[in-house]
């Protein structure tokens, strides 16, 4: 999918070095990259999937509220950032891939603005809350 621009390439390198999960998406929400800690959230390996279209990865990543109800996309920080080109922050629950437990995750997302004010996509950083 990508012929990535330099800002995205360097963002991936940064994400690759972090021990917290990171998603990098383009302006359409296509998942350009997820790092190794994020593989645990998706139950997928980037080395096997490569970049994924938004229709594809949204079917495997299903955040819910505390009652297990699926969240509307506009409630998700990453979706908000793509819509507003502004940082966003919020929490949601996801089902564990290895047990029946739920995990509360907090997400901070921010837009990737290249020179000169080119909106290239967004980065989401995940903080485990419980």
């Amino acid at each position, binding site marked *: 999918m990508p012929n990535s*621009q*330099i800002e995205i*390439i*360097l963002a991936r*390198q940064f994400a*690759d070095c972090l021990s917290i999960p990171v998603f990098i998406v383009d302006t359409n929400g296509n998942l350009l990259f997820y790092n190794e800690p994020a593989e645990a959230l998706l139950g997928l390996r980037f080395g096997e999937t490569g970049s994924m279209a938004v229709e594809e990865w949204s079917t495997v990543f299903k955040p819910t509220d505390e009652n297990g109800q699926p969240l509307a996309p506009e409630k998700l920080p990453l979706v908000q950032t793509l819509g507003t080109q502004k940082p966003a922050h919020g929490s949601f629950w996801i089902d564990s891939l290895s047990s029946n437990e739920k995990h509360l995750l907090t997400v901070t997302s921010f837009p990737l603005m290249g*020179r000169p004010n080119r909106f290239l996509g967004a980065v989401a950083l995940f903080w485990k809350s419980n």
Partner: protein
Amino acid sequence: MKVTIWGCRGSLPSPGPEKNKYGGNTSCVELLHNETCIILDGGSGIQRLGSAINANIKTIHILLTHLHLDHTMGLGFFLPLYNPNVTVHLWGPTGTNESLIKRLRRYFSPPLFPVRLNELPAHPIVHEINHSVFFIDDIKITSEFICHPGPTLGFRIECDNAILAYMPDHEPALGAANFPNDPGWTSGYKLAKDADILMHDAQYKNSEYATRVGWGHSSMADAIRFAEMCSVKKLLLFHHDPAHTDEQLEQLFEDNTKGKNIPFEVELCTENTFFNI
């Protein structure tokens, strides 16, 4: 299109008898096609070009990859800038906070240079570019930011079905995932893909690069890997280290090419040479 190399040294002009073969002037390449004159970078090599340029040329386009001094230091000594009958267009990268003209004025002002930009007989026409596609007469130019400190462009120049890619300062191995095996995640790939000629940064030996990662330049080995990934037809190794003598350059070239199965032509770029594409 006739291509003439007026300077291919990196970082610092470094004349001397031990560098006579490959030359000591910094980046400057002249492209001539019919009545169109395009100059890539304004390093110290542009001074000699200014004295030799065809007097019939009344419009000159200077494309600056970036504003590091080795790519701009010759501009003040480029005679056509002092000729009111010549129109000079300066094309260069957009910055984050300051306009291109404001950044150019830093060079064209004391204490770096005595003549201010607005004191030139005809003020050059300044064009800011970034991820751009534009035409100069019938020559198509694509520019993109590439991996080098500060806003730095690479150029893909297309004319009469020939493609010249110019990336004199470029460190594609930095930040690239699995370099050189993942083109979509490598800086500059789109610009260089299938180029007839790629002029690319090849400043360092491997041992030198190991201690200079992040400085924005490539080892010769990485330049060759990048060219192979991009399926270019010919690679001109550019931006020679100012400390490397002719003899050392040739040894470095031999170390990186002899006995290797390189599926394209490779040469050390040489000042005062020209070719047609």
